[in-house]
């Protein structure tokens, strides 16, 4: 397995901060240069979703559909039917939130290469409040047959994922964070659709994160190590199809699993891991994330703090979990 390279600045205050959505914007321009079949559409959020970079580079391959997320997907599907690979973007709350049935019928069942771009996903919609904080997107997209679901962990990975999804040319959803978050991977860090990565070795407990929570898991692992608890950390950038093999092989060594996401644990990463463990290797599991609740206004990091999803909170939850739960033995 390719080694998951972390930035030298990983644990420094000087680490570069950039919104994950910026990676999409940059990656899409590159994809557009490499393949003239790439087209992009947006529902009146061109700059917010970073699609404006593509629009400026390839104006004739960009369609502005207005505030009309259902039509956004139908039009994208029509363009795909004519041989294009379409990136259709809006806020995640509305796309896939409002456009889900169009995604189901005209993209997934119809098997057209439309990549649904959902920006400002999860708690990252921040001050906009609960109406705009899409926490159920992972649940509703991973339930779809024929759908790839990708949650990049930082802007560099988002760029790689965008290029990979453009190349794959299949129905997909890419979930993007709004606020600046640490760029802790490097240009050499591997990314492949459908792969999970072990980003830290450890033998006492496994932390599984996706998107921005992987960095928080690494922070938690560092704190846990100070207390003598060695946590393995797995990044799951592709939630569907899930890399069951890597995950099962890895958790076999620790016997205890904690999932962390800034999304609904019911239907989200927590469910995906619970299903996998339940079917293949039942063991003690703790799911951290949004547990049947909505968010509220605040910054991303205030909200992660409030809902117990920052490194220190995760470390506390893991210590409690490890104390109560016996390790799984095969």
């Amino acid at each position: 397995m390719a080694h998951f390279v972390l930035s030298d600045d990983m644990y420094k205050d000087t680490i570069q901060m950039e919104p994950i959505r910026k990676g999409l914007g940059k990656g899409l321009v590159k994809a557009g240069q490499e393949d003239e079949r790439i087209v992009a559409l947006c529902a009146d959020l061109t700059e917010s979703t970073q699609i404006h970079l593509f629009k400026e580079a390839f104006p004739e391959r960009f369609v502005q559909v207005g505030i009309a997320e259902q039509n956004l997907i139908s039009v994208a599907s029509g363009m795909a039917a004519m041989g294009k690979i379409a990136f259709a973007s809006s806020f995640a709350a509305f796309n896939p939130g409002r456009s889900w049935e169009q995604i189901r019928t005209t993209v997934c069942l119809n098997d057209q290469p439309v990549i649904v771009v959902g920006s400002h996903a999860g708690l990252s919609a921040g001050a906009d409040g609960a109406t705009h904080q899409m926490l159920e997107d992972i649940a509703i997209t991973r339930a779809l047959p024929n759908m790839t679901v990708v949650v990049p962990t930082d802007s560099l990975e988002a760029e790689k994922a965008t290029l990979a999804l453009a190349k794959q040319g299949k129905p997909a959803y890419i979930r993007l964070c709004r606020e600046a978050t640490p760029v802790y991977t490097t240009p050499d860090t591997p990314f492949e659709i459908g792969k999970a990565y072990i980003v830290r070795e450890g033998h006492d407990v496994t932390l599984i994160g996706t998107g921005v929570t992987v960095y928080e898991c690494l922070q938690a692992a560092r704190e846990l190590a100070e207390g003598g608890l060695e946590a393995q950390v797995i990044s799951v950038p592709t939630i569907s199809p899930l890399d069951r093999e890597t995950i099962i092989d890895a958790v076999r060594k620790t016997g205890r699993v904690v999932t962390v996401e800034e999304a609904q644990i019911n239907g989200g990463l927590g469910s995906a891991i619970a299903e996998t463990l339940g079917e293949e290797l039942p063991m003690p599991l703790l799911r951290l994330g949004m547990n049947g609740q909505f968010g509220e206004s605040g910054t991303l990091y205030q909200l992660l703090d409030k809902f117990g999803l920052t490194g220190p909170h995760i470390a506390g939850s893991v210590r409690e979990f490890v104390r109560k739960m016996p390790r799984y033995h095969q």
Partner: protein
Amino acid sequence: MSGQLTLSQLEHMAMIVRQDIISMLEEAGSGHSAGSLGMADVFTALYFNIMQHQPDDPSWSDRDILVQSNGHIVPVRYAAMARAGYFPLTELKTLRKLGSRLQGHPERVILPMMETTSGPLGEGLGQACGMAYTLKYIDKQPHRWVYVTLGDGELDEGSNWEAIMLAAKYDLHNIIAFVDRNNIQIDGNTEDVMPLEDLRAKWESFGWHVQEIDGHNIESIIDAAAMARAITEKPSVIITHTIPGKGVDFMEYDFHWHGVSPNKEQAKDALKKIRSMDGRIEGDHE
């Protein structure tokens, strides 16, 4: 395919298509009778006159595209396609059955010549917009047209109006939409369920070129399509006034026949009614 049949041959073909619809739906045991019969003349005109296509080469790169937004009346399209030579007539009997390519609603993955998967209402026009935009502005293929059929009841769906605005914004003159104005939907008459009038004024105010025709006059259908192709500055809609259940008197105008199929006795009766409308057809069409 274009221009091969005379007007009376086209009328004859529409009648055969109606008989196919009745036979298919009876065999299937479910399906949408009224709209399928009502649009038989439009689909006959499309497949035997209006559209540029090659039944022996469904993916011909210069073909016109047909998006059937009202996918629930796909029996009429299957019948017209089979008669045009896309697949054997015997396959019509597999409609809605396990393992069939003729799904209850059009599915492109199973039958690529359907162009797209459709049926959930309010999605076809948007897909047509994406196709027409690509043909007009990206691939620059001005000789190809995108035809769309819509039900009138489906105009309740707000997503249609999103697409109607987009088509006008981008002057997608290469879209020609047929709205099946038969005034019925599942729960009753359209004007009772959710009034659509003034339908013409609505489309016109959204920037479309509008024609209204008798949807059972094949010459009018062909002429309206030709006129729509001549309008190069805006998208065109042809409001085709049809009689739901056309050709079978006990189905005509009755919304109860929107979503059901005839039983054996009713089908026998219906086939007799269709044939009796035109003495030129004798005996069983099979």
